[in-house]
Structure formats: C-alpha cells, structure tokens
C-alpha cells in the first residue's frame, strides 16, 4: 500500500506565523525525510509538509485533525512500529517514524 499523502508532492496546509526561531527536528513521514521545529506537536509537524494525517476509515475523505484539544480523536496516526498516537497532544521528537497508513507488516 502506498500513501497518497507524500509530503513533497502535495505540500502542507499549516502556515507558520510566529516562533520560527526554534531548533530543527528531523522525522520521517511515510518513509520521507521531513523537518519540523522543537515544540511542534506531531500534528503541526505533519501538516507543515502534508495535507492530512490519515485516511478516514468510514468515508472517502482524509483526516487532518479537528479540535486540537484531545476531544475529537480525529488526528490519530500510525508509527512505524504499529503503535498509534494522538497528533495534537504529542510533541514531535527527533527520529520519530510516522505513517499516514498502517505499516506494511500490519495484519
């Protein structure tokens, strides 16, 4: 299964307005190298370079978070090891391996 959310292809939806001087953090999204800033949530980090965090399980549309306060549970995404995390309440860390689709080893 390949992701249709390859960051470089589509570009992100978030615009940085302030706080741009923070140190850089490197992570991988669907195998592609991405950059974010220390203190970004995973949601911010992903949506800087991609337009969504995953495919909806129940509809044709993709998902990109909704409430940003941990209430809607819209922004869960996959990690390379098969675990999932809530992107709006988790801070990005160096070396994180994130996926917008389940890992290939997932049953």
């Amino acid at each position, binding site marked *: 299964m390949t992701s249709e959310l390859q960051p470089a292809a*589509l570009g992100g*939806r*978030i*615009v*940085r*307005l*302030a*706080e*741009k*001087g*923070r*140190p850089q953090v490197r992570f991988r999204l669907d195998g592609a190298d991405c950059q974010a800033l*220390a*203190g*970004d*949530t995973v949601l*911010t980090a992903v*949506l800087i370079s991609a*337009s*969504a965090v995953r495919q*909806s399980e*129940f*509809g044709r*549309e*993709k*998902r*990109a*978070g*909704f*409430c*940003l*306060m*941990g*209430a*809607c*549970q*819209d922004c*869960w995404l996959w990690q390379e090891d098969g*675990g*999932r995390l809530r992107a709006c*309440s988790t*801070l990005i860390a160096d070396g994180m391996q994130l996926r917008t689709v389940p890992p290939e080893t997932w049953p």
Partner: protein
Amino acid sequence: MTAPGAEKVVIVGAGPAGIRAAERLVQAGVRPVVIDEGIKAGGQIYRRPPPGFVRSPEQLYGSEARKAVELHTVFDRMAAAGQIDYHPQSSVLTIADDFLQALTPAGRKDFTCDRLILATGAMDRLAPIPGWQAPGVYGLGAAQIALKAQGVALGSRIVLAGSGPLLTLVATQLLKAGAKIAAILDTSSIRNQAAGLPGMLTRPSLVLRGLLMRAKLGRLYHAGVTLDRIETDERGPVGLCWRDACGRAHVTECDMVGLGWHLRAETQLAGLAGCTFDYDESWSQWLPRTDRMGRAAGGLYLAGDTLRILGADGAELAGRLAATACLADMGLASPDATSDLRRLGRYERFARAMARAFPWPGEMVRAVPDDTVVCRCEGVTAGQLRESVIYGGGEANRVKSLVRIGMGRCQGRYCQLAGAELIADTACIRVRDAGRLREQAPARPLPIGLWVRDT
C-alpha cells in the same frame, strides 16, 4: 470513617476552575490530587506553549495576560512545593464510586478518592454543514489553540463561521498575527445580537472590548448569514457557500474553515460519575444539576464551563466555590462565599444574555440535506438518522444503537446536539425529549495492550 482533613480529594482539570479549586484546598491544608491532560496547567483559554516558545504573555493572552500569568504562577508554585499531587498529560478514563482510572505517560494509573471535583471545561459546540467532514475544517477553538500554543494558522486563506464570542476573538487574534482571513460569517442576526445586549451590559467592559474588536473586523464580518455548504476537493475546502442576511448567495474561496457556535460543556466524566442532567433552553444543551456551590451529589462537585458556560472569570469563581463546598462538607473551616456567589450571579446573567445574542442554529441544522454527514467520526448522515427515527423512534440512545450516531471515537461530543435536533424535528418532539446520550467508559481511546499486560 475518614478523619476530618484526612479525606482524599481529586481534582480533574487544571484550567482556571481546577487551579482555583486546588488553591483553596491547599490554603485549608488539604493536599489534592490534580489530574490534567495538558502538558502544562492553564486549560484551553490560558494554554501555554511548549518550552522554547518566546512570545510574551501579552502577545499570547492580550488583555487577559495578567490573569493568565497569575493562574500559572499560583499553580506552578503549588506543584513545585509539593502542595498538590500533580499528574499532567493524564486522562481520566473512567469513574466508579470512589475509584478513577487514568492513562498517564507512564501507563495506567488508578486513584481512589473520597471527594471529586470535576473541572473539565468546555469544547466548541458544532453544527453540521455539508462538507464539514473534509480535512482542513476545524473547530474555532482549534484555530485559537494552533495560534496560541504553536504560532501557526491552520490554512493560508481562512473562513471563520458560526456564532459566539470566540468568532470575533479568534478572527481578531488571527488577523493580528498576520493570518489571511477571507470572511467571518456569523449565523446570528444583528437583531438577535441587539436582543442580548441589555443583559450583557452587566459586564460593560467586556461588551465594549467585544464591540471594538468587531468594529475592527470591518467588511470581513457578516451577520445573519446562512451557511449552505463547504465545497471541497481531495485536499480539503476550496470554498464556502453562504447566503447573506438579504438572501443573496456568495461563495468565498478558502483552504481552511473554522466552525463553532459558542461552547458545549465537556460532561463525559460528570455523566460517568453519576450526575443528573437537565436540558437548558438558554444554552441549548444538557448541563449537570448542582446546587449554587457546585455540589452534584455525595462527594461530587463540578466547577467551571463543565457546569455553566461562564468563561474563564466565572470558572475561577466556580472553582473556588466548589472547593469551599468541599471543605465545608469535610467539616473544615471554609471562607464565606457570599460575595463570590453574588458575582457568579452577575456572570450568569451576562452569559445567558450572550447565549441569547449568539444562539444555537437549530433551524439551520433541521434543514440540512439528507446526505450531510452528522457524525464526523463514522460518516453517519442526516438521512440515515432521520430514517432510523421513522422506524425506530425518537430517542437518542436508540438512534445511537441503530445508526451509531454518538458511538464513534469522539463519543458524541460533536454530533450529540445536532443529532438531538434532527431526532426532535423528525419525531415532532422537543429537543429535550429526544433524550441525552448515556456516557460509556473509557472517556478517551486507550491502547488495549496497557490493560492486557497489567492484569
């Protein structure tokens, strides 16, 4: 029987209400447990960015900077001195009698408590419009959190729509920060807003501040609009179709839509803890039943927006009052609450007037086309809901069983009120008679492995 002063008190939530409740208990010599989902205390309105961010409190909180800093300082001091047993980034999942289970960064943790103060706040109150399930549509609160806690805008051409004080505030904050806003669409008419004004004058400085903000929005702001649909492509919104107060149709191009109709109390834990709820006509939602101090039942207290949508100032008061009631019930000396109660009454009159000025868009919800998604979690449509009412009856929990409205990941937080509106409309009953969704634990999704391994 626990000796006076030896009872264990747990506070859930560290926003303005939870912080003031903790402070009052600490002043009386009680060391409460404080469980909060935030990385730092402050709640949503006084949310603090992660370490490494440099904007000043004035830039982050505007006219409320002093209050925000004071609350943060009060809380951090109590936490540093060990006067509270503080558990950040922790979500309470279930409550049963004197037992709480929480998901913490270290895994599952169980708490027991003799008394429980719930200060779980509020969230955006959402109404469905066609296309709102697209990526790039967010709550108004989300737009504010993104700006405050991350310094970002959620789109490069933004339309904000809905109604309520947050609409004007978020628009003002985004414009000030340099975001590009294409339109601010208020479903409340000028007439509605004028009707609420006399009651709002109980807090004249707030009204003045709001009117000044509104004036600065200029021609971007439109009152009395009807929202028809969000046009979308693969990536998300491309335009918002709306009609102005005179009925003229418009399409505003955008790549992000922020939606919100004032606030909805976050009552999941209150429900699990056994609160009784009443449908409140002025706030158009179910709110927990308590006495004036916030006492719900034996040993259970509620404070802040989870109980009454009064905003941050009211939440501080309510937090103090709930803790005062808790102290009195434990047989400990508690300060006189008369002046706090008087102020609370004033804030409540203001808030009811505000609810009148920026009402829930019931008519708009009842008119949504059948193919409109009502449940964002699982894509359940208005048509499916209406059909289920026709063959299954007009009761919310039955509709939930039949078509899963309210059964998805958000547990009905974002579809309950619209669902009730549609059920009532289809069954020709009052919204209050459509019934309230029963809560089910866990209040947040949890990794099942943590529970399997632990037992």
